[in-house]
């Protein structure tokens, strides 16, 4: 028995015969906030889709709470792992409350009846995410920032020990990016959740995350931000003749 909630061992990901990235190794404990960074097209979303069982792995092992992910039944997995994807909401006619309530599906009966406990849980999450005033608003009337918050709140309503999010801060302004990341930080710290997300906001991730995974397809360095900076991992992330990394400030500048 290890105390890791999420353990990835020698994982190779890709589509059929095309391997996008391999030798991915990392372990996360409860309360950890981890960002996956890397170039466009390197396989960040594919990695998340593989971990969440939306597509098959090529090799290696994905272990959630001491059990490989393939051994989970669909209902079991749905109360262990929740997701936030980049795909747009297909039915914008849902109200915020209706969308959040769907997060309770793993716990409701065949007819989807919400118990008082479910309703309390939904109300608590709405309060925490400052969504109570918006609860009857239809999703088409929300801004991108509000909608992203609703998606994350839906995953929080699902109340799983592990949360996986694909680019939760993309398309948002700096203020909303920070707000979203602070919510994630709070969920991890206060509720002891393991949160894994992909992002292009490396400078923000360096400030807020416990650990980072730099997906480069081959060595995939993983560790605390400070250690990765000391190892010089960020200097070679982008072409050094165009972008340089200031290790002292933890920021990128244009050459």
């Amino acid at each position, binding site marked *: 028995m290890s105390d890791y909630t999420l353990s990835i061992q020698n994982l190779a990901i890709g589509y059929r015969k095309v391997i996008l990235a391999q030798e991915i190794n990392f372990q996360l404990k409860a309360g950890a906030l981890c960002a996956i960074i890397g170039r466009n097209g390197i396989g960040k979303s594919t990695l998340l889709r593989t971990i969440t069982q939306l597509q098959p792995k090529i090799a290696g092992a994905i272990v959630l709470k001491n059990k490989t992910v393939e051994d989970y039944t*669909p209902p079991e997995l749905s109360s262990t792992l929740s997701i936030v994807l980049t795909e747009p*909401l297909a*039915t914008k006619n849902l109200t915020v409350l*209706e969308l959040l309530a*769907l997060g309770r599906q793993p716990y409701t009966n*065949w007819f989807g009846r919400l118990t008082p406990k479910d309703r309390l849980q939904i109300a608590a999450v709405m309060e925490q995410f400052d969504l109570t005033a918006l609860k009857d608003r239809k999703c088409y009337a929300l801004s991108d920032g509000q909608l992203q918050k609703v998606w994350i709140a839906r995953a929080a309503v699902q109340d799983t020990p592990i949360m996986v999010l694909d680019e939760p801060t993309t398309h948002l302004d700096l203020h909303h990016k920070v707000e979203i990341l602070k919510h994630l930080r709070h969920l991890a710290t206060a509720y002891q959740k393991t949160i894994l997300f992909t992002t292009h906001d490396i400078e923000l991730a360096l400030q807020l995350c416990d650990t980072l995974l730099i997906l480069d397809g081959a060595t995939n360095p993983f560790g605390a931000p400070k250690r990765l900076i000391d190892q010089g991992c960020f200097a070679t992330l982008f072409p050094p003749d165009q972008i340089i990394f200031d290790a002292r400030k933890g920021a990128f500048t244009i050459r």
Partner: protein
Amino acid sequence: MYAPSQYYRPFFLLIIALALAWALNLVLGSVVIPLKDIGSILMGGQAREASWYYIIWNYRIPKSITAIFVGGGLSLGGLLMQTYFRNPLAGPFVLGISSGASLGAALLFMGSAAFGISILSDISVVAAASMGSFLVLFIIIITASHVRDTMALLIIGLMFGSITGALVSILAYFSSAEQLQRFIFWSFGSVGNLSTQQNAILGGVVGLGLVLSFLLVKPLNALLLGENYAKSMGVSLQRSRAIILITTGLLAGTITAFAGPIAFVGLAVPHLARQFFSTMEHKVLVPAVFLLGAVLMLCCDTVAQLPSMARVLPINAITSILGAPMVIWLLLRQRKLLF
């Protein structure tokens, strides 16, 4: 969040509307029967003319029941398709499922002689039309898993409509005038002339569709967020997909077999129900769509009967004339069909 009390009022209004539409449908018809006599006939009493008794019990009542089954069933099929494809324009007719049923029926009506089959029973028409609708549904599912674009899916449905139309023309070209006439009359659509036995089969299938739809409420709600989210919330996609498709295929196939290809009901009614009840919750939408579809079909049938005239209009024309502007009105009102 689902709070049943909030929907009591609209459901109450809908049931009143159903009662009114049903009454109107029984009262109005080619033959003028005074209201007083209709009342006494329905109470089991005598009428001043024996033929009135016959018209009410053997023609208008079975016809109105068929209309309720047809309208409710087609609308349910439309709701399932719209949610499954998360596409506001999906419906048994638009996706070519009704065309598939037409092809099946056409093969039976006009090709039976060529294939040496002479059994033209109710069951064989239902089987042929259901098989046709399943075939198209199956092909659409396969293409849908390759083409993610919903617009492409509708175009594919449209193309199926064209292909089946062409195949039907070829069949028509080689068939006798009598066979052709049977098919043409069938394709106009009609909710009359169903025997008690046929009505029972139709009622059984629609009842089964209603039960299956209620069993599907939870996965349907999850599917509103897309298949990936549904899966992440513990929905068994394969099983739900299979039940949704079987239900829609059975409903569209059987109804089309008995009542002909009826357009727009399956497309328009779910939108009207979403507007009227202002919810996406399938616990509400399944019964609401069924009731609203029944009301609409009763009204369309009443119009098609051309009260106090000897002629009857094809019901398919009426549903199109009423349904198409309704969809346009919804589009204009909301700029786009919100789903």
